[in-house]
Protein backbone atom coordinates (compact mmCIF):
# COMPACT_ATOMS: atom_id res chain seq x y z
CA UNK A 1 0.00 0.00 0.00
CA UNK A 2 1.38 3.40 -0.95
CA UNK A 3 1.44 6.20 1.61
CA UNK A 4 -0.97 9.01 0.86
CA UNK A 5 1.01 12.13 1.82
CA UNK A 6 -2.14 14.05 2.76
CA UNK A 7 -2.60 11.90 5.86
CA UNK A 8 0.78 12.99 7.25
CA UNK A 9 0.83 15.78 9.76
CA UNK A 10 3.16 18.63 8.80
CA UNK A 11 5.69 17.70 11.49
CA UNK A 12 5.70 14.07 10.33
CA UNK A 13 6.15 15.07 6.68
CA UNK A 14 9.08 17.34 7.52
CA UNK A 15 10.63 14.75 9.84
CA UNK A 16 10.57 12.28 6.92
CA UNK A 17 12.18 14.80 4.56
CA UNK A 18 14.90 15.62 7.09
CA UNK A 19 15.60 11.98 7.84
CA UNK A 20 16.02 11.12 4.16
CA UNK A 21 18.21 14.21 3.68
CA UNK A 22 20.54 13.12 6.50
CA UNK A 23 20.59 9.51 5.25
CA UNK A 24 21.64 10.72 1.80
CA UNK A 25 24.60 12.50 3.34
CA UNK A 26 25.71 9.27 4.98
CA UNK A 27 24.45 9.86 8.53
CA UNK A 28 23.24 6.76 10.35
CA UNK A 29 20.12 6.79 12.50
CA UNK A 30 20.77 6.66 16.24
CA UNK A 31 17.98 5.02 18.20
CA UNK A 32 17.89 5.40 21.92
CA UNK A 33 15.81 4.45 24.89
CA UNK A 34 13.38 6.90 26.46
CA UNK A 35 15.29 6.61 29.75
CA UNK A 36 18.87 7.35 30.73
CA UNK A 37 20.67 7.16 34.03
CA UNK A 38 20.23 10.46 35.82
CA UNK A 39 24.00 10.77 36.48
CA UNK A 40 24.61 11.50 32.81
CA UNK A 41 22.66 14.75 33.07
CA UNK A 42 23.60 15.67 36.63
CA UNK A 43 27.23 16.16 35.60
CA UNK A 44 26.44 18.46 32.68
CA UNK A 45 23.36 20.28 33.92
CA UNK A 46 24.21 23.64 32.36
CA UNK A 47 24.46 22.01 28.94
CA UNK A 48 20.73 21.28 29.03
CA UNK A 49 18.22 23.84 27.79
CA UNK A 50 16.30 23.60 31.08
CA UNK A 51 17.54 22.03 34.30
CA UNK A 52 14.26 20.38 35.19
CA UNK A 53 14.39 16.65 34.58
CA UNK A 54 11.70 14.03 35.15
CA UNK A 55 13.25 11.32 37.30
CA UNK A 56 12.12 7.97 38.71
CA UNK A 57 13.70 5.04 40.48
CA UNK A 58 14.13 1.91 38.37
CA UNK A 59 13.38 -1.57 39.77
CA UNK A 60 17.09 -2.03 40.59
CA UNK A 61 17.14 1.16 42.66
CA UNK A 62 18.96 3.28 40.09
CA UNK A 63 17.81 6.85 39.60
CA UNK A 64 16.67 7.21 36.00
CA UNK A 65 15.56 10.18 33.91
CA UNK A 66 13.21 10.68 30.99
CA UNK A 67 15.72 12.05 28.51
CA UNK A 68 15.71 15.86 28.31
CA UNK A 69 18.39 15.83 25.62
CA UNK A 70 19.82 13.54 22.95
CA UNK A 71 23.33 14.91 22.43
CA UNK A 72 24.73 13.75 25.78
CA UNK A 73 23.59 10.16 25.18
CA UNK A 74 25.15 10.14 21.72
CA UNK A 75 28.43 11.59 22.98
CA UNK A 76 28.62 9.00 25.73
CA UNK A 77 28.02 6.06 23.43
CA UNK A 78 30.41 7.17 20.69
CA UNK A 79 33.61 5.19 20.34
CA UNK A 80 36.86 6.97 19.70
CA UNK A 81 38.41 5.68 16.47
CA UNK A 82 41.45 7.80 15.51
CA UNK A 83 40.85 9.84 12.35
CA UNK A 84 37.26 8.66 11.96
CA UNK A 85 34.12 10.83 12.25
CA UNK A 86 30.95 9.27 13.63
CA UNK A 87 27.99 10.76 11.78
CA UNK A 88 24.60 10.06 13.30
CA UNK A 89 21.13 11.60 13.13
CA UNK A 90 18.14 11.11 15.39
CA UNK A 91 14.42 11.69 15.52
CA UNK A 92 13.45 11.45 19.17
CA UNK A 93 11.10 12.86 21.73
CA UNK A 94 12.66 14.74 24.63
CA UNK A 95 11.02 15.89 27.87
CA UNK A 96 11.60 19.44 28.98
CA UNK A 97 9.96 22.31 30.78
CA UNK A 98 8.71 24.67 28.12
CA UNK A 99 9.80 28.25 28.58
CA UNK A 100 6.35 29.85 28.49
CA UNK A 101 4.19 27.42 30.47
CA UNK A 102 6.68 26.22 33.14
CA UNK A 103 5.24 22.71 32.65
CA UNK A 104 6.84 19.56 31.23
CA UNK A 105 6.31 18.96 27.56
CA UNK A 106 7.13 16.22 25.11
CA UNK A 107 9.05 17.77 22.22
CA UNK A 108 9.92 16.05 18.98
CA UNK A 109 13.47 16.82 17.98
CA UNK A 110 15.32 15.91 14.79
CA UNK A 111 19.02 16.53 14.54
CA UNK A 112 22.46 15.30 13.73
CA UNK A 113 25.87 15.06 15.35
CA UNK A 114 29.38 14.60 13.93
CA UNK A 115 31.76 13.31 16.59
CA UNK A 116 35.41 12.38 16.05
CA UNK A 117 38.27 13.94 14.12
CA UNK A 118 36.29 17.00 13.03
CA UNK A 119 37.78 19.19 10.30
CA UNK A 120 36.59 22.25 8.38
CA UNK A 121 34.78 20.05 5.86
CA UNK A 122 32.65 18.42 8.60
CA UNK A 123 31.72 21.84 9.93
CA UNK A 124 30.78 23.03 6.44
CA UNK A 125 28.66 19.93 5.83
CA UNK A 126 26.85 20.36 9.15
CA UNK A 127 26.03 24.02 8.47
CA UNK A 128 25.00 23.12 4.91
CA UNK A 129 22.58 20.50 6.23
CA UNK A 130 21.26 23.02 8.76
CA UNK A 131 20.43 25.43 5.91
CA UNK A 132 18.92 22.63 3.85
CA UNK A 133 16.81 21.60 6.87
CA UNK A 134 15.45 25.14 7.19
CA UNK A 135 14.71 25.21 3.43
CA UNK A 136 12.71 22.02 3.82
CA UNK A 137 10.51 23.72 6.42
CA UNK A 138 9.99 27.05 4.69
CA UNK A 139 11.62 29.10 1.92
CA UNK A 140 11.47 32.11 4.23
CA UNK A 141 14.25 31.26 6.66
CA UNK A 142 17.46 32.76 7.98
CA UNK A 143 20.50 31.08 9.46
CA UNK A 144 22.43 33.32 11.88
CA UNK A 145 26.08 32.37 12.18
CA UNK A 146 28.55 33.43 14.82
CA UNK A 147 32.05 32.47 15.95
CA UNK A 148 32.58 32.27 19.70
CA UNK A 149 36.36 32.73 19.43
CA UNK A 150 35.85 36.14 17.81
CA UNK A 151 33.60 37.13 20.71
CA UNK A 152 35.91 35.83 23.43
CA UNK A 153 38.99 37.45 21.89
CA UNK A 154 37.15 40.79 21.71
CA UNK A 155 36.17 40.41 25.37
CA UNK A 156 39.75 39.52 26.30
CA UNK A 157 40.89 42.68 24.50
CA UNK A 158 38.56 44.62 26.82
CA UNK A 159 40.37 43.05 29.77
CA UNK A 160 37.55 40.71 30.88
CA UNK A 161 38.58 37.47 32.59
CA UNK A 162 36.85 34.11 31.96
CA UNK A 163 34.15 34.60 34.60
CA UNK A 164 33.41 38.15 33.48
CA UNK A 165 33.29 36.97 29.87
CA UNK A 166 30.47 34.60 30.76
CA UNK A 167 28.41 37.45 32.19
CA UNK A 168 29.18 39.63 29.17
CA UNK A 169 28.15 36.85 26.78
CA UNK A 170 24.69 36.76 28.38
CA UNK A 171 24.26 40.47 27.64
CA UNK A 172 25.56 40.03 24.07
CA UNK A 173 22.99 37.27 23.55
CA UNK A 174 20.23 39.79 24.33
CA UNK A 175 21.82 42.55 22.23
CA UNK A 176 21.79 44.47 25.51
CA UNK A 177 24.64 46.83 24.67
CA UNK A 178 23.73 49.54 27.21
CA UNK A 179 24.27 47.14 30.11
CA UNK A 180 27.26 45.54 28.34
CA UNK A 181 28.92 48.95 28.16
CA UNK A 182 28.21 49.68 31.81
CA UNK A 183 29.51 46.26 32.85
CA UNK A 184 32.76 46.65 30.87
CA UNK A 185 33.30 50.16 32.23
CA UNK A 186 32.93 48.85 35.78
CA UNK A 187 35.40 46.02 35.14
CA UNK A 188 37.93 48.35 33.53
CA UNK A 189 37.62 50.88 36.36
CA UNK A 190 38.41 48.07 38.81
CA UNK A 191 41.44 46.86 36.80
CA UNK A 192 42.76 50.29 35.94
CA UNK A 193 44.70 48.87 32.97
CA UNK A 194 44.51 50.22 29.40
CA UNK A 195 42.37 48.01 27.14
CA UNK A 196 43.54 46.91 23.70
CA UNK A 197 40.32 48.12 22.09
CA UNK A 198 37.67 50.68 23.02
CA UNK A 199 34.32 49.47 24.35
CA UNK A 200 32.43 51.42 21.67
CA UNK A 201 34.40 49.75 18.90
CA UNK A 202 33.68 46.31 20.35
CA UNK A 203 29.97 47.20 20.57
CA UNK A 204 29.97 48.26 16.91
CA UNK A 205 31.44 44.89 15.94
CA UNK A 206 29.10 42.89 18.20
CA UNK A 207 26.03 44.64 16.81
CA UNK A 208 26.87 43.73 13.19
CA UNK A 209 24.10 41.75 11.52
CA UNK A 210 24.54 41.46 7.80
CA UNK A 211 25.48 39.17 4.95
CA UNK A 212 28.75 37.34 5.64
CA UNK A 213 30.97 39.04 3.01
CA UNK A 214 30.19 42.52 4.41
CA UNK A 215 30.72 41.51 8.03
CA UNK A 216 33.94 39.62 7.27
CA UNK A 217 35.34 42.65 5.46
CA UNK A 218 34.72 44.77 8.56
CA UNK A 219 36.20 42.10 10.85
CA UNK A 220 39.34 42.02 8.69
CA UNK A 221 39.74 45.80 8.68
CA UNK A 222 39.23 45.92 12.43
CA UNK A 223 41.89 43.24 12.94
CA UNK A 224 39.71 40.71 14.81
CA UNK A 225 40.98 37.20 15.68
CA UNK A 226 42.48 36.32 12.26
CA UNK A 227 42.22 32.53 12.62
CA UNK A 228 38.53 32.66 13.52
CA UNK A 229 37.73 35.24 10.82
CA UNK A 230 39.43 33.02 8.24
CA UNK A 231 37.38 30.04 9.41
CA UNK A 232 34.18 32.06 8.98
CA UNK A 233 35.35 33.25 5.59
CA UNK A 234 36.22 29.76 4.33
CA UNK A 235 32.92 28.39 5.63
CA UNK A 236 30.72 31.07 4.05
CA UNK A 237 32.64 30.92 0.76
CA UNK A 238 31.97 27.17 0.61
CA UNK A 239 28.29 27.73 1.44
CA UNK A 240 28.04 30.28 -1.37
CA UNK A 241 29.69 27.85 -3.76
CA UNK A 242 27.15 25.22 -2.71
CA UNK A 243 24.38 27.68 -3.62
CA UNK A 244 23.16 27.97 -0.01
CA UNK A 245 24.77 31.25 1.02
CA UNK A 246 21.87 33.57 0.28
CA UNK A 247 19.89 33.32 3.49
CA UNK A 248 22.83 33.42 5.91
CA UNK A 249 23.75 36.35 8.14
CA UNK A 250 26.52 36.80 10.65
CA UNK A 251 25.16 37.90 14.01
CA UNK A 252 27.25 37.81 17.20
CA UNK A 253 24.20 37.69 19.45
CA UNK A 254 24.08 33.97 18.61
CA UNK A 255 25.97 32.84 21.68
CA UNK A 256 26.07 29.60 23.58
CA UNK A 257 27.50 28.63 26.91
CA UNK A 258 31.29 29.03 26.67
CA UNK A 259 31.64 26.05 29.04
CA UNK A 260 30.48 23.68 26.33
CA UNK A 261 30.61 25.41 22.97
CA UNK A 262 33.49 26.85 20.97
CA UNK A 263 34.07 28.05 17.42
CA UNK A 264 31.16 28.20 14.97
CA UNK A 265 27.66 28.39 16.46
CA UNK A 266 24.37 29.05 14.69
CA UNK A 267 20.61 29.46 15.04
CA UNK A 268 17.87 29.12 12.46
CA UNK A 269 14.71 31.19 12.20
CA UNK A 270 11.55 30.74 10.14
CA UNK A 271 9.38 33.74 9.29
CA UNK A 272 6.23 33.69 11.40
CA UNK A 273 7.67 31.44 14.13
CA UNK A 274 8.55 33.57 17.18
CA UNK A 275 11.48 31.49 18.42
CA UNK A 276 14.51 29.89 16.84
CA UNK A 277 13.67 26.50 15.35
CA UNK A 278 17.20 25.23 14.90
CA UNK A 279 20.25 25.57 17.05
CA UNK A 280 23.73 24.11 16.85
CA UNK A 281 27.46 24.51 16.72
CA UNK A 282 30.83 23.08 17.70
CA UNK A 283 30.95 21.63 21.21
CA UNK A 284 34.45 20.32 21.73
CA UNK A 285 34.43 21.68 25.29
CA UNK A 286 31.56 19.36 26.26
CA UNK A 287 33.55 16.35 25.06
CA UNK A 288 36.56 17.47 27.04
CA UNK A 289 34.32 17.75 30.08
CA UNK A 290 33.15 14.18 29.47
CA UNK A 291 36.81 13.14 29.25
CA UNK A 292 36.80 12.41 25.52
CA UNK A 293 39.53 13.47 23.15
CA UNK A 294 37.32 13.96 20.08
CA UNK A 295 35.72 17.10 18.69
CA UNK A 296 32.08 17.52 17.78
CA UNK A 297 29.63 19.60 15.79
CA UNK A 298 25.88 19.18 15.36
CA UNK A 299 22.46 20.75 15.49
CA UNK A 300 18.86 20.08 16.47
CA UNK A 301 15.59 21.10 14.84
CA UNK A 302 12.72 21.64 17.28
CA UNK A 303 9.62 20.23 15.67
CA UNK A 304 7.00 21.24 18.26
CA UNK A 305 6.32 24.59 16.59
CA UNK A 306 5.38 23.03 13.25
CA UNK A 307 1.98 21.90 14.44
CA UNK A 308 1.22 25.38 15.76
CA UNK A 309 2.43 27.40 12.81
CA UNK A 310 2.14 25.23 9.71
CA UNK A 311 -0.86 22.97 10.21
CA UNK A 312 -3.67 24.25 7.99
CA UNK A 313 -7.22 24.51 9.36
CA UNK A 314 -9.35 22.05 7.43
CA UNK A 315 -13.06 22.79 6.99
CA UNK A 316 -13.93 19.05 6.95
CA UNK A 317 -12.56 16.01 8.72
CA UNK A 318 -14.28 13.67 6.25
CA UNK A 319 -15.36 13.90 2.64
CA UNK A 320 -18.30 11.55 2.92
CA UNK A 321 -20.57 10.01 5.52
CA UNK A 322 -22.78 7.12 4.40
CA UNK A 323 -25.82 6.77 6.62
CA UNK A 324 -27.37 3.34 6.86
CA UNK A 325 -29.90 1.58 9.08
CA UNK A 326 -30.77 -1.91 10.31
CA UNK A 327 -32.52 -2.77 7.01
CA UNK A 328 -29.66 -1.73 4.74
CA UNK A 329 -28.17 -4.65 2.86
CA UNK A 330 -24.62 -4.97 4.19
CA UNK A 331 -23.29 -5.97 0.75
CA UNK A 332 -24.72 -2.78 -0.73
CA UNK A 333 -23.15 -0.83 2.13
CA UNK A 334 -19.72 -2.37 1.55
CA UNK A 335 -19.98 -1.66 -2.21
CA UNK A 336 -20.96 1.93 -1.51
CA UNK A 337 -17.96 2.42 0.79
CA UNK A 338 -15.71 0.91 -1.92
CA UNK A 339 -17.13 3.33 -4.53
CA UNK A 340 -16.30 6.29 -2.28
CA UNK A 341 -12.82 4.92 -1.49
CA UNK A 342 -12.08 4.45 -5.19
CA UNK A 343 -12.89 8.11 -5.74
CA UNK A 344 -10.17 8.92 -3.19
CA UNK A 345 -12.64 10.16 -0.56
CA UNK A 346 -12.20 9.91 3.20
CA UNK A 347 -15.38 8.07 4.17
CA UNK A 348 -17.16 6.58 7.17
CA UNK A 349 -20.34 4.49 7.42
CA UNK A 350 -22.54 5.44 10.39
CA UNK A 351 -26.01 4.73 11.66
CA UNK A 352 -26.13 7.95 13.69
CA UNK A 353 -24.13 11.09 13.12
CA UNK A 354 -22.48 13.09 15.87
CA UNK A 355 -23.16 16.83 15.66
CA UNK A 356 -19.41 17.36 16.30
CA UNK A 357 -18.47 15.51 13.09
CA UNK A 358 -17.44 17.87 10.25
CA UNK A 359 -18.09 16.29 6.84
CA UNK A 360 -18.63 17.52 3.32
CA UNK A 361 -21.39 15.32 1.95
CA UNK A 362 -23.94 13.01 3.53
CA UNK A 363 -25.07 9.97 1.51
CA UNK A 364 -27.63 7.25 1.94
CA UNK A 365 -28.07 4.04 -0.03
CA UNK A 366 -31.21 3.63 -2.16
CA UNK A 367 -33.09 0.34 -2.60
CA UNK A 368 -30.93 -0.57 -5.63
CA UNK A 369 -27.69 -0.09 -3.68
CA UNK A 370 -26.71 3.23 -5.29
CA UNK A 371 -25.26 6.18 -3.33
CA UNK A 372 -27.63 9.14 -3.05
CA UNK A 373 -26.50 12.51 -1.85
CA UNK A 374 -28.68 13.71 1.03
CA UNK A 375 -27.45 17.23 1.67
CA UNK A 376 -24.40 19.40 1.82
CA UNK A 377 -23.27 19.73 5.41
Amino acid at each position, binding site marked *: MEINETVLKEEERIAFILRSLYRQYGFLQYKMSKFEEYDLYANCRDFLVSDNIITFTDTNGKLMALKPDVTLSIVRSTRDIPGYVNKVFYNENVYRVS*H*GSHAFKEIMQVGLECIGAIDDYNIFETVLLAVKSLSAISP*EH*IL*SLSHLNIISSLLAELGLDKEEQKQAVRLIG*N*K*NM*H*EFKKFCEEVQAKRNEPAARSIDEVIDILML*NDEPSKVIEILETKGCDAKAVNELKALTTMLNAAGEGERI*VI*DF*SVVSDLNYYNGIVFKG*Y*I*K*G*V*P*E*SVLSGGQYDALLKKMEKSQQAVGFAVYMDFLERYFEKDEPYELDAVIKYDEDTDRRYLFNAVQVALNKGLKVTAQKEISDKLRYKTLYRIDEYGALKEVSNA
Partner: protein
Amino acid sequence: MLNIALPKGRLGEKVYEMFEKAGYDCPSIHEKNRKLIFENKEKDICFFWVKPSDVNIYVERGAADIGVAGKDILLEYEPDVYELVDLDIGKCMMAEAARNGYIDQIQRTKRVATKFENIARNYYASIGRDIDIIHLNGSIELAPILGLSDVIVDIVETGTTLKENDLAVVEKIVDISARLIANKSSYEFKKAQINAIADALREQTEQRKEKA
Protein backbone atom coordinates in the same frame (compact mmCIF):
# COMPACT_ATOMS: atom_id res chain seq x y z
CA MET B 1 3.50 45.62 9.27
CA LEU B 2 5.52 46.07 12.47
CA ASN B 3 3.47 45.38 15.62
CA ILE B 4 4.41 47.47 18.65
CA ALA B 5 3.16 46.69 22.17
CA LEU B 6 3.08 49.68 24.51
CA PRO B 7 2.43 49.54 28.25
CA LYS B 8 -0.88 51.09 29.29
CA GLY B 9 -0.65 54.13 31.53
CA ARG B 10 1.54 57.18 32.03
CA LEU B 11 4.77 55.45 31.00
CA GLY B 12 3.17 54.18 27.78
CA GLU B 13 2.03 57.68 26.86
CA LYS B 14 5.55 59.01 27.35
CA VAL B 15 6.91 56.18 25.22
CA TYR B 16 4.36 56.88 22.48
CA GLU B 17 5.50 60.52 22.47
CA MET B 18 9.03 59.28 21.80
CA PHE B 19 7.82 57.20 18.86
CA GLU B 20 5.83 60.19 17.58
CA LYS B 21 8.87 62.45 17.81
CA ALA B 22 10.93 59.87 15.94
CA GLY B 23 8.43 60.02 13.08
CA TYR B 24 6.54 56.83 13.96
CA ASP B 25 3.21 58.44 14.76
CA CYS B 26 -0.30 57.11 14.54
CA PRO B 27 -2.80 60.00 14.82
CA SER B 28 -5.81 57.72 15.40
CA ILE B 29 -4.35 56.83 18.80
CA HIS B 30 -5.55 60.23 20.13
CA GLU B 31 -9.19 59.58 19.13
CA LYS B 32 -11.47 58.88 22.05
CA ASN B 33 -12.92 55.44 21.39
CA ARG B 34 -12.61 51.84 22.52
CA LYS B 35 -10.39 50.65 19.71
CA LEU B 36 -7.55 48.39 20.81
CA ILE B 37 -5.30 48.51 17.75
CA PHE B 38 -4.04 51.61 15.93
CA GLU B 39 -2.51 51.39 12.47
CA ASN B 40 -0.48 53.72 10.34
CA LYS B 41 -0.43 51.99 6.95
CA GLU B 42 1.91 54.55 5.41
CA LYS B 43 4.56 53.97 8.09
CA ASP B 44 3.76 50.26 8.12
CA ILE B 45 3.35 50.18 11.91
CA CYS B 46 0.63 49.17 14.32
CA PHE B 47 0.40 50.07 18.02
CA PHE B 48 -1.56 48.42 20.78
CA TRP B 49 -1.80 49.03 24.51
CA VAL B 50 -1.39 46.12 26.87
CA LYS B 51 -0.96 45.67 30.61
CA PRO B 52 2.67 46.63 31.43
CA SER B 53 3.50 43.19 32.80
CA ASP B 54 2.15 41.56 29.61
CA VAL B 55 4.36 43.41 27.10
CA ASN B 56 7.13 40.81 27.47
CA ILE B 57 4.66 37.99 26.71
CA TYR B 58 3.34 39.66 23.55
CA VAL B 59 6.90 40.24 22.32
CA GLU B 60 8.37 36.87 23.32
CA ARG B 61 5.52 35.00 21.64
CA GLY B 62 5.74 37.15 18.52
CA ALA B 63 2.27 38.78 18.69
CA ALA B 64 4.25 42.03 18.88
CA ASP B 65 7.54 42.45 17.03
CA ILE B 66 8.79 45.07 19.47
CA GLY B 67 7.55 46.61 22.70
CA VAL B 68 8.47 48.68 25.71
CA ALA B 69 8.76 47.01 29.10
CA GLY B 70 10.16 48.00 32.48
CA LYS B 71 13.46 46.39 33.51
CA ASP B 72 11.62 45.05 36.59
CA ILE B 73 9.37 42.96 34.35
CA LEU B 74 12.35 41.74 32.28
CA LEU B 75 14.26 40.70 35.40
CA GLU B 76 11.23 39.03 36.94
CA TYR B 77 10.06 36.99 33.93
CA GLU B 78 13.38 36.68 32.04
CA PRO B 79 11.77 36.54 28.59
CA ASP B 80 13.93 35.36 25.68
CA VAL B 81 13.96 38.69 23.80
CA TYR B 82 16.48 41.26 22.62
CA GLU B 83 16.85 44.30 24.88
CA LEU B 84 17.82 46.96 22.36
CA VAL B 85 17.63 50.35 24.07
CA ASP B 86 17.51 51.73 27.61
CA LEU B 87 14.96 54.52 27.07
CA ASP B 88 15.99 56.19 30.33
CA ILE B 89 12.38 57.01 31.29
CA GLY B 90 10.16 55.52 33.97
CA LYS B 91 13.23 55.53 36.18
CA CYS B 92 13.06 54.05 39.65
CA MET B 93 14.84 51.33 41.58
CA MET B 94 14.21 47.89 42.98
CA ALA B 95 15.16 47.99 46.64
CA GLU B 96 14.99 46.19 49.93
CA ALA B 97 13.11 48.31 52.48
CA ALA B 98 12.23 47.85 56.13
CA ARG B 99 10.86 49.74 59.16
CA ASN B 100 13.11 52.54 60.37
CA GLY B 101 15.61 51.19 62.85
CA TYR B 102 15.50 47.67 61.39
CA ILE B 103 18.53 45.52 62.23
CA ASP B 104 19.18 42.45 60.08
CA GLN B 105 19.25 39.34 62.30
CA ILE B 106 21.64 37.21 60.27
CA GLN B 107 21.17 34.20 62.50
CA ARG B 108 17.52 33.99 61.38
CA THR B 109 15.91 33.31 58.00
CA LYS B 110 14.88 36.65 56.56
CA ARG B 111 11.16 36.96 55.75
CA VAL B 112 10.76 38.91 52.52
CA ALA B 113 7.41 40.17 51.22
CA THR B 114 7.36 40.95 47.51
CA LYS B 115 5.55 40.89 44.21
CA PHE B 116 8.89 40.20 42.47
CA GLU B 117 9.73 36.69 43.64
CA ASN B 118 12.35 35.90 41.00
CA ILE B 119 14.24 39.16 41.51
CA ALA B 120 14.23 38.71 45.28
CA ARG B 121 15.30 35.06 45.08
CA ASN B 122 18.19 35.88 42.69
CA TYR B 123 19.33 38.84 44.77
CA TYR B 124 19.46 37.00 48.09
CA ALA B 125 21.04 33.94 46.44
CA SER B 126 23.78 36.24 45.06
CA ILE B 127 24.63 37.42 48.58
CA GLY B 128 24.10 33.99 50.13
CA ARG B 129 21.25 34.97 52.46
CA ASP B 130 18.61 32.43 53.48
CA ILE B 131 15.11 33.82 52.96
CA ASP B 132 11.45 32.96 53.20
CA ILE B 133 9.48 34.57 50.37
CA ILE B 134 5.98 35.85 51.07
CA HIS B 135 4.30 36.57 47.76
CA LEU B 136 1.88 39.50 47.90
CA ASN B 137 0.03 41.13 45.01
CA GLY B 138 -0.21 44.67 46.36
CA SER B 139 0.16 46.98 49.39
CA ILE B 140 3.52 45.34 50.04
CA GLU B 141 4.43 48.12 52.50
CA LEU B 142 1.88 46.76 54.96
CA ALA B 143 3.80 43.53 55.51
CA PRO B 144 6.65 44.79 57.77
CA ILE B 145 4.31 47.16 59.59
CA LEU B 146 2.05 44.29 60.62
CA GLY B 147 4.99 41.97 61.29
CA LEU B 148 4.14 39.71 58.37
CA SER B 149 7.69 40.12 57.03
CA ASP B 150 11.05 41.55 58.10
CA VAL B 151 11.64 43.42 54.86
CA ILE B 152 10.05 44.07 51.48
CA VAL B 153 11.52 44.01 48.00
CA ASP B 154 9.67 46.48 45.83
CA ILE B 155 9.91 49.33 43.36
CA VAL B 156 10.83 52.65 44.96
CA GLU B 157 10.15 55.78 42.92
CA THR B 158 10.20 58.83 45.17
CA GLY B 159 10.21 57.06 48.50
CA THR B 160 7.17 59.02 49.71
CA THR B 161 5.04 55.96 50.42
CA LEU B 162 7.90 54.44 52.41
CA LYS B 163 8.46 57.63 54.40
CA GLU B 164 4.77 58.10 55.21
CA ASN B 165 4.68 54.57 56.60
CA ASP B 166 7.83 54.89 58.69
CA LEU B 167 9.80 52.68 56.29
CA ALA B 168 13.18 53.26 54.64
CA VAL B 169 15.36 51.77 51.91
CA VAL B 170 17.93 49.36 53.34
CA GLU B 171 19.70 48.37 50.12
CA LYS B 172 19.31 49.24 46.46
CA ILE B 173 19.09 46.04 44.38
CA VAL B 174 19.00 47.36 40.81
CA ASP B 175 18.12 50.47 38.79
CA ILE B 176 14.95 50.22 36.76
CA SER B 177 13.91 52.04 33.58
CA ALA B 178 11.90 51.37 30.43
CA ARG B 179 13.58 49.23 27.73
CA LEU B 180 12.84 48.71 24.05
CA ILE B 181 12.60 44.96 23.49
CA ALA B 182 12.32 42.92 20.28
CA ASN B 183 11.30 39.40 19.37
CA LYS B 184 14.40 37.48 18.25
CA SER B 185 12.84 35.98 15.15
CA SER B 186 11.07 39.21 14.10
CA TYR B 187 14.39 40.99 14.39
CA GLU B 188 15.91 38.72 11.74
CA PHE B 189 13.13 39.37 9.25
CA LYS B 190 12.40 43.04 9.97
CA LYS B 191 15.77 44.27 11.15
CA ALA B 192 15.95 47.38 8.91
CA GLN B 193 12.71 48.75 10.38
CA ILE B 194 13.49 47.67 13.96
CA ASN B 195 17.03 49.09 13.85
CA ALA B 196 15.76 52.40 12.44
CA ILE B 197 13.31 52.72 15.34
CA ALA B 198 15.92 51.65 17.91
CA ASP B 199 18.45 54.16 16.56
CA ALA B 200 15.91 57.00 16.58
CA LEU B 201 14.84 56.26 20.16
CA ARG B 202 18.47 55.85 21.29
CA GLU B 203 19.34 59.22 19.78
CA GLN B 204 16.47 60.93 21.66
CA THR B 205 17.62 59.30 24.88
CA GLU B 206 21.20 60.50 24.36
CA GLN B 207 20.00 64.03 23.61
CA ARG B 208 17.85 64.10 26.72
CA LYS B 209 20.80 62.91 28.83
CA GLU B 210 23.08 65.58 27.36
CA LYS B 211 20.55 68.32 28.17
CA ALA B 212 20.21 67.18 31.76
